C-alpha cells in the first residue's frame, strides 16, 4: 500500500536529477496565472455586482431590436427577444458561477472528509468508502445528473447539488490518496505517538495538507461544473429561471441565428471559454507549484 508513495518520490527525484526547463516555470506561478486569476476575479465581481450595475434595464424584452449586432449601446448585441447579450452574460455568470462554486464546495465538503477518513483509517472503512467512490465513478455522470434533475426540479439548488454529487468521488479519491501519503509522514506519526485523537489529527494535521491539492482540483472542478451546466442546457434540463451561459449558447446555436446573429452564441461561448481556460490554467499552475500528482478527474 505504500506504493501510493512511489510515483511521487519518483517525480521528485526526476526533478532533482534531471531538471528540464519546465522546472523554472514550475517554481513560480507565473504571469499567466495572475492573468487567469484576474479574469476570474473580474467575472466574479461583475456577477456579484450585477444587481447594482447599470444593466438591469437591458435584460428585458425589447431593450434593443431583434438580433441587433454589437454596437456602443449593446456591446455584445441583442438576442432574439431584443435583450442585451452583455447584460445577460453577466446575469448568466451569476448562475453559471454559482452552480460551479456550490457544486465544488459541496463536493469538497462531502468528498474531502470521506476521502480523509478513508485514507486515514484504511481497512474496512476505506474499503466501503472507496467502493462508493468507484461506483460513483462508474456511473455515467451526465445520466446520473439527468436522472436526479428530472425527478426533482430544475432549480439552481438542485442542479448545483447534482453536480456536487458528481464531484464527490474525484475529490474524495484525491483526498484519500494524499491522506495516505501524509499519514506516513513524521509529523502525523509523531502526533499519533503523543496520543492525539484521530479527529484532531485529521483536522489539524491532515486537512491543511490535503486542502492544497484539493484546491487545485477544485479549480478544475468548477470548470467542469460550468461546462456540465451547459451540457444540461443542451439536453433541456438546466436551471429553469433566468439566464445561464449554457442556455444563452443554446439559444444562439441554431443555424439561422448563427448566421444572422453570430454574437448571440459567440459572446457567451467566448466568456465561458475564457473562464474555463482561466480555471484550467490556474488549477494547472497551482498543481505544478505545489507539485501535486495527477489524478484522473
Amino acid at each position, binding site marked *: 500500500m505504500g*506504493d*501510493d508513495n512511489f510515483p511521487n518520490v519518483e517525480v521528485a527525484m*526526476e526533478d532533482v536529477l*534531471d531538471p528540464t526547463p519546465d522546472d523554472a516555470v514550475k517554481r513560480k506561478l507565473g504571469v499567466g496565472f495572475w492573468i487567469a486569476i484576474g479574469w476570474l476575479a473580474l467575472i466574479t465581481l461583475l456577477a456579484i455586482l450585477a444587481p447594482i450595475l447599470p444593466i438591469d434595464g437591458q435584460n428585458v424584452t425589447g431593450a434593443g431590436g431583434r438580433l441587433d449586432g454589437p454596437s456602443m449601446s449593446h456591446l455584445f448585441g441583442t438576442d432574439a427577444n431584443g435583450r442585451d447579450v452583455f447584460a445577460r452574460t453577466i446575469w448568466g455568470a451569476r448562475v453559471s458561477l454559482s452552480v460551479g462554486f456550490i457544486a465544488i464546495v459541496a463536493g469538497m465538503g462531502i468528498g474531502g472528509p470521506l476521502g480523509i477518513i478513508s485514507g486515514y483509517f484504511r481497512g474496512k472503512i476505506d474499503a466501503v468508502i472507496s467502493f462508493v467512490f468507484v461506483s460513483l465513478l462508474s*456511473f*455515467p455522470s451526465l445520466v446520473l445528473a439527468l*436522472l436526479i434533475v428530472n425527478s426533482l426540479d430544475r432549480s439552481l439548488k438542485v442542479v448545483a447539488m447534482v453536480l456536487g454529487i458528481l464531484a464527490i468521488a474525484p475529490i474524495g479519491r484525491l483526498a484519500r490518496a494524499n491522506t495516505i501519503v501524509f499519514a506516513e509522514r513524521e509529523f502525523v506519526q509523531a502526533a499519533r505517538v503523543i496520543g492525539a485523537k484521530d479527529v484532531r489529527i485529521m483536522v489539524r494535521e491532515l486537512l491543511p495538507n490535503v486542502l492544497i491539492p484539493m484546491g487545485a482540483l477544485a479549480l478544475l472542478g468548477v470548470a467542469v461544473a460550468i461546462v456540465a451546466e451547459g451540457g444540461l442546457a443542451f439536453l433541456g434540463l438546466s436551471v429553469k429561471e433566468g439566464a445561464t451561459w449554457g442556455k444563452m449558447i443554446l439559444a444562439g446555436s441554431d443555424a439561422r441565428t448563427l448566421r444572422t446573429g453570430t454574437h448571440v452564441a459567440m459572446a457567451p461561448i467566448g466568456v465561458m471559454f475564457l473562464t474555463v481556460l482561466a480555471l484550467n490554467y490556474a488549477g494547472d499552475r497551482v498543481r505544478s507549484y505545489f507539485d501535486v500528482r495527477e489524478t*484522473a478527474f
Partner: protein
Amino acid sequence: MRYILQRIGQLVMVLFAVTVITFASVNVLGDPLTNILGPLASIDCADVNAGLKPDSSTRGGTSEGDCAVVERTRAEFNLDSALPVRYARWVGDISTGDFGTSFQNQLPVSTVIKNKLPVTLRLVGVGLFFSIVLSIPWALLSAYRANRPFDNVSTVVSFGLLAIPNFAMGVILLYFFAVRWQFFPTRYDPDGIYNQLKSLFLPGLTLALPLAATYQRLLRTDLITTLQEDFVHMARAKGMPPRSIMTRHALRPSMFSVLTVFGINTGALLGGTLVIERIFSIPGVGTEIVTAIVRDDTPVVLGIVVIIVTGFVLINLLVDLLYSVLDPRVRRG
C-alpha cells in the same frame, strides 16, 4: 488469477451498486404507477368503489373500469411488493435477457438497445480513432522539440481545446462544416458504411479533440522522460535518424499513462455522448436515454444504464488486465 477473480468480484459489486441506485432512484423519486399509467394513477379508487364517483368515465367502449386497470397494473408490475423484491425480480429478468418493455412504445428494451447501441459504438469508435491519430504524431513532434516554438504553441492549443465546451465545439463544427460549407451531412445517415462514417466525422471529431489534447499532454510528458533514458542516448549516438528513435524506441515505453487514461475515458465515453448525439441528431443510446429519462420510461433507462456501466467496468477491467500483463508491478497497487 486471484487478481482477476478479485477484479471480477469488484465488477459485479459495482454493477450491483449502480443498478440498485438507479432502480431505487427511478422508483422512489418518481411514482412508478404514474409513470406507467399517467394521470389515471391519480384516480381515487376508494371513492369509486364507494360509488361516489363513476368509474370508466374515460374509457368508452372498454369493459374494464379505471380502478380495475389501476389494480391490474399494480399486480402486473408488483408495485405492492417491497422495493428489494421488485429489484430482485428485475435482476432475475435481466439475467435471462429480458430487459422489459418500453413504457413509451411497447418495444422490448433489448430491441431498443440493439438498434441504438451500434450507432453509439460507431461514434465512440470514430472518436477514439481520431483522438489516437491526432495525439500520437502531435505528441511526438512536440516532445522531440520540447519547449521550442512548436511545443509552446501546441501547449496553448491543447489548453484551448480543453477549454472549449464540447457542445460549443459541436455547434461550431456543425455550423461551418455541415451547414455553411456542406462538407458533411447534418444528420446520421445509416445507409452504408461510407455514409455512416461520413456523417460521424464531425461528431467524432468533436469527441476526439479534447481527448487528443489530453493524450498529447500525457504522452508528451512521458516521451520527454523516456528521451532522457540511456537506450535513447545510445540510439542517438549510433546515429539513428530522429524519426526512428521517436517512433521505434521512445514511443512504446512512453505509452503507459496514456493507456490508463485511454481506458478510463473510453469507458466514460459510452455514457458521455449524450450532448453530441443531441447536437448532431444521432439516434444512439445517448439520445435514447435522454428521451427515456424525460419521459420516465423506466425500463429503458435501467436497461441502458446497465449496458453503459457494464461496458465501462469491462473496459476498465480489460485495461487493468492488459496493464498487469505488461507490467507485473501494478498488481500490487
